């Protein structure tokens, strides 16, 4: 069973398709990184899953049943765009309202639990409008965590956060998935951060899903390369091209792709009369993989 299964989902605004025949599968227990450029349809898809938008067509299933099923919906928590709290009310009151809405048996206990998860036990009495951006995002997560959700949908939860805020948020998300086994659908532009936690990826472009893959698959697809700096970059590059199939000059380095044997390269360059000043092994990360995939799609 999948946590989310979407088939041929479409949504248009004034004739323009924001989501166009989208297919998506989010396995139970995964942290699904939802990637795409601005306006690619990430937020619209998430809003559709949350039932905030009415789809033009297609099918959305949550844990094997239609997404409108109240039994499924009661176990969905979301942070879409902002926390959705009343600014004049305290953090506690905002959480209490959602706890009442969910019909939780021990709301006070549950609020204390989620505040502890997001490390805001001491901020319950603060008015929401007085909270910093990082705190607001964490309150949004706390709100989404009320009532033991089986699925969390988080739209750009780390946007605008400083380094420390991002670290805290990352730790919280890892905690949630490890301790509570919640499936998380998370969209973000900060791919470096996403890479640290995601177990699956979905890449969306112009409303269509162009690729879905697990972190393991991604690992396999990400190419390794060796970066080299020498005195005579052009000469070394020409020499390496004779021996290796994919040699490029990028970011002030010569990159030799699909090779991870640094000794072999150093030896070869030495024989060709080049002295290596700097050499390091690298692997293409999610960000580079994404950029490469996007430029390929652009060419198509």
């Amino acid at each position, binding site marked *: *069973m999948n946590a989310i299964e979407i088939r041929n989902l479409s949504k248009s605004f004034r004739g323009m398709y924001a989501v166009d025949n989208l297919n998506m599968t989010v*396995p*139970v*227990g*995964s942290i699904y990184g939802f990637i795409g450029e601005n306006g690619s349809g990430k937020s619209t898809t998430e*809003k559709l899953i*949350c*039932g*905030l*938008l*009415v789809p033009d067509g297609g099918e959305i299933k949550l*844990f*094997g*049943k239609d997404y409108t*099923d*109240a*039994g*499924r*919906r*009661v*176990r*969905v*928590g*979301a942070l*879409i*765009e*902002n*926390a*959705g*709290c*009343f*600014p*004049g*009310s305290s953090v506690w*009151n905002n959480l*209490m*309202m*959602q706890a*009442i*809405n*969910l*019909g939780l048996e021990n709301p006070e206990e549950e609020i204390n639990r989620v505040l502890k998860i997001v490390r805001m036990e001491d901020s319950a009495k603060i008015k929401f409008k007085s909270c910093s951006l990082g705190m607001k995002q964490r309150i949004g997560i706390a*709100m989404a965590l009320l*009532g033991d959700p*089986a699925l969390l*949908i988080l739209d750009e939860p780390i946007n605008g956060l400083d380094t420390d805020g991002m670290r805290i948020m990352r730790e919280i998300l890892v905690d949630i998935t490890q301790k509570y*086994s*919640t*499936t998380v659908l998370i969209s973000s532009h900060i791919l470096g951060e996403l890479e640290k936690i995601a177990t699956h990826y979905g890449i969306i472009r112009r409303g269509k899903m162009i690729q879905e893959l697990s972190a393991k698959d991604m690992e396999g697809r990400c190419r390794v390369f060796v970066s080299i700096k020498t005195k005579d970059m052009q000469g070394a590059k020409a020499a390496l091209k004779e021996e290796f199939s994919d040699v490029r000059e990028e970011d002030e380095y010569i990159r030799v792709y699909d090779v991870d044997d640094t000794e072999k390269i150093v030896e070869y360059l030495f024989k060709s009369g080049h002295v290596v000043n700097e050499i390091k092994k690298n692997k293409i990360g999610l960000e580079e993989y994404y950029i490469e995939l996007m430029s390929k799609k652009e060419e198509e």
Partner: protein
Amino acid sequence: MQTARELKFESPSFIKRFKGMLGVDFYRLFHTPLFYIFLAIAAIIPAMLIGMTGMTNPDGTVTEPIFTNVWQAIAADTPIYGFEGIEKYANMNMVFIFGGIMVSIFIGHDYKSGYVKQLFTTHAKKSDYMMSKSLTCAFAMACMCVTYLLGAVLAGALTMTSFKGNFLNIVCAILGKMVMSLGWASLYAFLNIIFRRYFGISIASSFFFGTGILVIAVGALVGNTPILNIFLYGASVFACLSSSFANVLACLIVSVAWTGIYNVFGSYILDKSDVY
């Protein structure tokens, strides 16, 4: 990873769902200043109207009393639908105008803050939302009727205005107005659903319909015809100082009927349109 077997999904019953939604609205009502501000406004208005009685103007003349009897601040002597003197309209019906503004702010904040996303992401149904808002706001408006009454009585006692009147008729008039709160609250909830993205228009439309200007205009054209009682404003006017329990019953029927209509259409609109 969580396995499919460990996942349990129980559909909440209508009662559990609705209790949750109603609980949220009442919690919010009692935990934000909005409700208390409007209660105070409802008490101040009749006090000001009655308090103006007999005031001396700067030129030495004495202001003509608006009311010679405290209960005139509660309801008109007889149902008058067409336009007459403004004093005939300056009674408890004004609660429905200010109540409209309160409902607009109450619902408008759901959308402005984004809280509505939290509600509809979970199990809440659109019809629960409409019903809950109608009931909560009706309760708030009924409370405003009570503080209006208290304001009028207190001001009447302080200015020594006459309290002469038939107790049963007065109680029926007040009950009639309070019962009408449900219909008015539903109308405002409906208007706010339509104009949910435009806060200003929501308030303006609530104010426009709350004044009963359409019924007054029709009344002015066709005269005092009981057929106007089928409308919210007409039924509200029908609850007057010559009311009996029959009037209260008529108000209840009209109020519940319009509540049903507005709730059905409001839920339909919410169901068929994007929430946020």
